[in-house]
């Protein structure tokens, strides 16, 4: 019976250091990490947008802040977070409508998401901040 098998003692491993996550699992947890990162940085993003459109002075002030190495690092992280969340999100939407749900194609699309978001991050960072 199903009830019996549910209650049966089964081996359990919740040790994060010994779990080898497959590629789609890595994309999934990075989707969470990138989403949480964007949420935490929302005040910064709103401030950046406000500074960039309010006045020529605030625009220059924003450019000065953005040229600082630490700011460039944070912005690179945010650009990656947006790109990864965007690409992985499109992958999840496709999975929702049963596109690419087979193991092989799901692993391939996970690799594509990781690669494409890194390339887009490098390109955008180069265009915007270099």
């Amino acid at each position, binding site marked *: 019976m199903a*009830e019996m098998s549910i209650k049966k003692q089964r081996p359990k491993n919740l040790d994060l250091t010994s779990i080898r996550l497959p590629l789609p699992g890595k994309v999934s947890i990075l989707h969470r990490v990138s989403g949480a990162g964007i*949420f935490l940085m929302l*005040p910064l993003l*709103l401030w950046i947008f406000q500074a960039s*459109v309010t006045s020529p002075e605030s*625009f220059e002030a924003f450019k000065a802040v953005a040229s600082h190495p630490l700011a460039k690092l944070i912005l690179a992280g945010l650009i990656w977070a947006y790109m990864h969340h*965007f690409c992985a999100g499109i992958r999840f*939407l496709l999975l929702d409508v049963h596109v690419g749900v087979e193991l092989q194609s799901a692993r391939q699309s996970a690799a594509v998401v990781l690669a494409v978001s890194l390339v887009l991050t490098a390109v955008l960072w180069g265009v915007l901040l270099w």
Partner: protein
Amino acid sequence: MVNRIVVGAHYGLKDWIAQRATAVVMAVYTALIVAVILVARPADFEAWRAIFAHGFIKFASFLFALSLFYHAWIGMRDLWMDYIKPTGLRLALHVLTILALVGYAGWAASILWRL
């Protein structure tokens, strides 16, 4: 047998759909704003500001912001539900998340409608 009554409650279906609908709004806006910037090629502050001062872009940007904040609420609520076990702390984080996001929505509106 799992004898659970599955009628009468939606088990998060509304949030599931809202998360995806807001995601699509944000994806469409992202494609739109990238296309506009590539075509307009704003070279200075005035050109950059003019893009967002345009009536339709302002409207679309506000919808993007609202979609982002609603999407962020569902996502953060899921994270708090998954990782924060003490009920009181979880409730406090839920309330703080809502307060922050409602505040951000007002902030975004004030930025856009001052243009």
